[in-house]
């Protein structure tokens, strides 16, 4: 049963997806929440220093969120299938290995 599962499930890709999803998904939600918290600190501030600290916190979190979007677009544009070298653009490339003649 375990052998069958290891054959059918691509664990190496799966754990990377789970880690990336946790970092990207949960991370962005938390960082965006901290951004809002920074704005709240700035809005509620009674001193100039606290106001700037709030805006600085919001700014850093905003940059992290923008970076996450950039990484997302990079992942779309540079997915592994886009890195295929020219020789693979042949008729043979259209035939999956499992269907190719063994000889």
């Amino acid at each position, binding site marked *: 049963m375990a052998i069958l599962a290891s054959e*059918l499930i691509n664990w190496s890709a799966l754990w990377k997806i789970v880690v990336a999803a946790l970092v990207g998904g949960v991370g962005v*939600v938390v960082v965006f929440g901290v*951004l809002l918290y920074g704005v709240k600190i700035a809005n509620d501030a009674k001193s100039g220093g606290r106001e700037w600290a709030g805006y600085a916190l919001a700014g850093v979190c905003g940059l992290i969120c923008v970076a996450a979007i950039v990484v997302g677009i990079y992942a779309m544009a540079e997915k592994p299938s886009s890195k295929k070298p020219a020789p693979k653009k042949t*008729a043979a490339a259209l035939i999956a290995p*499992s269907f190719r003649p063994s000889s």
Partner: protein
Amino acid sequence: MGSELILILVVVAGFSFDFTNGFHDTANAMATSIATGALKPKVAVILSACLNFAGAFISISVAATIAKGIVNPKVLAGGDGLELVLAALIGAMTWNLITWYFTIPSSSSHALIGGVIGATIVATASSEINWHNLVQTVIVPAVLSPFIAGGVAALGTYLAYRLIRRLGQREARTGYRYGQIFSASLVSLAHGTNDAQKTMGVISLALIAHGDISAVHFSVPLWVKLGCALSIALGTASGGWRIINTMGNRITNVESPQGFAAESSSAAVILASSYYGYPLSTTQVVSGGVLGAGLGKNVDSVHWNVIGQMLSAWILTMPGAGALGGLAWAIADIFGAHANVGAIVICALAAAGAFGLWTLAQRNKVTADDLDRTNVSPVEEAELAGVPPAVAAA
């Protein structure tokens, strides 16, 4: 002349499938943003349409060939390849319309794979299908993806509500509404990249089978890219309000922090899986994300009967689209050597079926105005969620 006519029908069917894919999957990106009032419904679908169009051009990768590694490509590129691809597209498109009529989000990619498999089995033999690869690259990811997205969204939602206690209801809910626009946009862009390319692959394969483009120096013609991008964008812009209603309102009552968590988690899962070469269905990921966002706030807020309907549709998608694809092939095959007559007949039947479903759907129509919640303020949203008025206004 016969094969030219069938090629034209394949191209039209391909663009039509992309159109159904667009309006079927608008919900994936925009349902939660519409449900929380972050965007007006029509603004949301137009934004999503533009991003789907742009997304179709983002990746420079060779468009994925359909059912790669599952169906022997020699069959699809062979003598009956054009008719087979046409039958597969008709099967997938009809399944998309049936699930749209029943307001259920289901995977357009699985419908396409199912259509190809069904038509191939009826046309040739099941030995042309690599069942091991089907389980490994389609079934297993389909089972796992809602759990991954759901788990991430549940954790994100839980943490978002912990943060809201420190933030105050009004600021938090307003802020997460703005955030939703960006997270939903990223999902739209990813959808355009992944799904428009699948149809580009189908049409390119038909062009190879017809001898218009070379398999040796394979590249997708610009008119195919433009046609697919435009079709998916027009489909997205046309709404798909029935499925948006299910995804945004019927799975759970989505609030802005949940919507942001669901879309961010879904975007992260879709992009990571695309990057690491583990293709997941956008629909199943987002459905899992919305479910997780519901669970992350309150288990009782999830409408399990709707989840049950969705699961049934997911299980039935490949066999259903496969049966329709196989049926389309069988009907076309009745005309034997007059392949062009058979192709015209199955296209006419599909068009009649689509019109019939559209007519039936008019009886219990869902419109953009029914879904507009932009008039609900963040404070009212908090009050509707059971937050005491004094706390909601804070």
